[in-house]
């Protein structure tokens, strides 16, 4: 019986790869959009602009204070009420982006806060405007504290894409659900699903560890 399952599973592999590509596509796009958004919001929070700082803080708290699953449901079920009809993939990207931005904003903000205020004072005292100060002095120093936790956040987000299968997107997790109905061996099927995620995430985990070590050594030698 087990052998039969394994053989049918091997026959379904193309289906799995298809789901995996959806997962990769979804993760890739969402990582890019949420990184851009998170950078902008993180910088805005760092600048402490009146009113905007409250909006950013409210957004971040709201997203971090509600489950991702609920956020997806809200986007998927509420938007059509306002006559905004997104397909499952677009809804998933939107949900992951909104969610990712909140976390990446905090990573960027905390990293910027680690840079001494004296750097800003030196730059602005020499006549650089705020934009130039950020562009040439602050952000180039911020990538070290940003990168390791950012890659860590990417790993979390790749895994969180699993949740979007609830809105009918045929990602690798949903492929698992569909397959287990034909091949009723949960351990086998979801073990395979798990392998796909692990293969995706493990290089990123190694990268995060590597960056962490590299930057710790560099900053301790400074």
């Amino acid at each position, binding site marked *: 019986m087990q052998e039969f399952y394994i053989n049918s599973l091997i026959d379904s592999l193309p289906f799995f790869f298809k789901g995996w590509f959806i997962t990769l596509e979804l993760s890739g796009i969402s990582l890019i959009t949420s990184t851009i958004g998170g950078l902008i919001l993180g910088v805005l929070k760092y600048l402490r602009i009146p009113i905007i700082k409250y909006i950013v803080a409210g957004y971040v708290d709201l997203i971090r204070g509600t489950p991702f699953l609920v956020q997806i449901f809200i986007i998927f079920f509420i938007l059509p009420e306002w006559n905004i009809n997104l397909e499952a993939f677009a809804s998933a990207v939107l949900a992951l982006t909104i969610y990712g931005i909140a976390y990446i904003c905090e990573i960027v903000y905390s990293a910027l806060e680690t840079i001494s205020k004296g750097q800003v004072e030196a730059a602005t005292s020499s006549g*650089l405007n705020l934009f130039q100060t950020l562009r040439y002095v602050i952000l180039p120093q911020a990538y070290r504290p940003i990168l390791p936790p950012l890659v860590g956040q990417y790993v979390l987000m790749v895994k969180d894409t699993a949740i979007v299968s609830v809105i009918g997107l045929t990602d690798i997790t949903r492929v698992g659900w569909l397959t287990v109905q034909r091949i009723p061996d949960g351990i086998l099927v979801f073990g395979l699903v798990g392998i796909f995620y692990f293969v995706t995430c493990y290089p990123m985990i190694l990268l995060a560890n590597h960056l962490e070590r590299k930057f710790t050594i560099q900053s301790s030698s400074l």
Partner: protein
Amino acid sequence: MIKFDNVNKWFGSHHVLKDIDLEVPEGKVAVICGPSGSGKSTLIRCINRLEKIQSGEIFVDGTAVHGKNKLTELRAEIGFVFQQFNLYPHMSVIDNITLAPTKVKKMDMNQAKELARELLVKVGIEEKAHAYPVQLSGGQQQRVAIARGLAMNPKIMLFDEPTSALDPEMINEVLEVMVKLAKDGMTMVVVTHEMGFAKEVGDSIVFMDDGAIVERNSPATFFTNPEHDRTRQFLNKILP
């Protein structure tokens, strides 16, 4: 060149600058001293608006610093040297110096590098042009910081305890550069406890205590015959 007109500043309910009136004419050096917490750093930081004031006004070359003028233009004309140097750690010495001239004044990069090399010769560390701040001693870093300030060809140089973070053996190399600068006719305001420097190049010595200017005098009078008891007590504590 610099004029404080009845300046007051509070940090919350703490009154840190009290009715400050002070003038520094062009080409003169004012040395500000006083016990820690007396407001001297705050005072110098108000000159280029690193700190805001709540009443009064400061004029630099006739321009009201705290009015609604173009702050970046004003700051480009005032060099500021910090106690902690605040060099940009991700840039080489020469890039530290050329950043503001190329970005603010849109100076050509080659011209800016030429200028930077001249300034490094002036502060005596031309061989360190391509080093990074972390590879320099404190004294060298502070001299780079001075060169960085001079690169904007400022009308005024402000020094906020420039030697307080240095090991004793490095203090003189920084003071020498500052003395040279003063003798070249730069308008300077210097917060320092280096009384030797004050005697040598100070045109006036300002003693601050508890947010107010207690005494302002020429070095000769200040050190030999101060008017106020508090000045005398202070000098007794810090002079050998």
